[in-house]
Structures are given as C-alpha cells and as structure tokens.
C-alpha cells in the first residue's frame, strides 16, 4: 500500500512517525514522509526532517522524506491526489491538560478533504 504520512513537529506527529514506520516495515508499505510547516509546533521543519531520516535509517526502511511548504493541510491532500496514494496517516491529536484529545487544524482539514482513507495514529 502506498502511504503518505504527514508530520509537523508535535509529539503526536513524532509518535505517528514511529508507529507508521513500524507498520510499514511489517506490512511492506511504500511510505512517503511529508514534513509540514505546522505553525502550532515548537520544532522546526529541519529538525523534523533530520529526526524522520534517523528513524527511517534505524528501521532500515527506504522512504522518501519531503518538506512540504505552503498551507499544510491543503498541500498534503493535493499530494495524495496527485501521486495516487492509498492512504494518508497523521498524528492522532494532542492531549489537553485534562487529557482531552484535541485535533489540530491540519487534521481537521485533511479528514474532511482527503479523497482517500485517513488514519489518525494513537
């Protein structure tokens, strides 16, 4: 399966990276990691790219890592359409101090607008 993982620099994104890479190794998925500019994130895109590259190397998985600029949700959906991905994966949301799940704007946009299945990784 051709999977497009979109990550910014939030903790749930990095967790989704670990889990999706693990899953791709097991399932033989063809993975592309799209690093998005998330204004809500503390980590820079360069840091996230370095981190993703290291995680992929550790897992021995050959996957594209791309930096996507522009509006993150829209660019991710367009990439999924343009390159015929079967699935988009994203982080499953941050937890509030109370423990409530909060979905960010990127996740909301992708869920509503993606032409393919969207997985929120928990």
């Amino acid at each position, binding site marked *: 399966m051709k999977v497009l993982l979109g990550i910014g620099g939030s903790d749930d994104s990095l967790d989704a990276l670990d889990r999706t890479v693990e899953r791709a190794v097991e399932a033989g998925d063809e993975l592309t990691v799209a690093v998005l500019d998330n204004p809500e994130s503390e980590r820079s895109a360069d840091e996230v790219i370095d981190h993703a590259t290291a995680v992929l190397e550790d897992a021995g998985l050959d996957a594209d890592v791309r930096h996507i600029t522009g509006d993150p949700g829209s660019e991710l959906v367009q990439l999924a359409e343009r390159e015929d991905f079967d699935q988009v994966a994203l982080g499953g949301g941050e*937890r*509030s*101090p*109370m*423990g*409530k*799940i*909060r*979905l960010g*704007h990127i996740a*909301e946009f992708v869920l509503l607008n993606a032409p393919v299945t969207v997985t929120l990784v928990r």
Partner: protein
Amino acid sequence: MTDETDTGPDSFPTPPLSFEDGEGREITVRTLPSTDDDDFEALVAMYDDFDPSMRAQGIPPTGESRIRSWLETLVGGDAYNVVAWHEGDAVGHATLVPDGEEGYELAIFVHQNSQGCGIGTRLIRTLLGYGAANGVTEVWLTVERWNHAAIALYEKVGFETTNAESFEIEMSMDLSAVNAQTDSTG
C-alpha cells in the same frame, strides 16, 4: 428553586455544599484533595460504571486501570477537584487542571443515573467558587459542538465562547471579579 443557582455568575458557593436535587435526594459536594482515601476509590467506581456513550473527547477512559491513572493525574496535584455524593456513592465530579500557564482547564462529569436533576449546575458552580477562593482567575474548556446540553450549562454559569473554528468549541471565563460565598448552606 430559591437556592444559589439563581444568584447569577458573580457569586459562587464554596464546598462543602448540601442540597436536595430535583429527585428529592440529599446531595453533598465536597473537595477531593487526595488519591489515598476511600473517596478516591468511590470516584474510580463511578467512572468504571460510566456510560461509554457519554464519553467526550477521549475522556473518561474505559477500564479501571486506565481510569485510575487518568484520575491520578488530576487528583492530589495542583488541580482543584470537587465530587458530588449521594449517600456513599460518587455521582458527579468536576475538576480544574492547571494548564502550565496562567489558566485552568475545566471538566465536569455527572453519572448517567444522576443527570437532569440539577447536580451538574451545583457542582460546576461550587468548583468555580472553590477555584475563585483559591485565586484561580482564568478558566477555559473545550466542548464538542453538538453537545448542546453541556454548552447550555456552561453558558448558564457564565462561560463565553472564545473560539468556534475547530471541531470543538472553546469557552472561557474570568473569575477575577467573582465573589466566592463562604456560606456553604446554599
């Protein structure tokens, strides 16, 4: 009703608070300062029996061990917790959790068998009075936009919508002008 629920948002009761609910049951609202007493165990039991269809935004979790670890992050630290009791049973819980900045996040749960009889309003007002008496000023919460009953409750006690652009509505309230009543009779 002629009790504290009619006095408006500028004045909240502080715990302990006793009242008769809409079903004529004697309800007491008390603080829950610590995880290591029987009250905490009774609260775990309330959540263990909580109707899963009434969960919101991933909480409360299901299963006793997950409930316990979730509650341990809320009780005994810097959060403010109040529990509504009917006889020996916990029937409602409301909490103010520090957000790491200036504010506190609020949540309230009332057991499915005790809803619709005025407990939620008393519980949230007593929590706000408890917070105000301890210097809490900025309180916020998020609520799913379809949850009209909860939104109506929050508006009734004085919350205003601050952000409605996401899946959830964000509401907040400034407690700095609130006068917490030390009269606990309601």
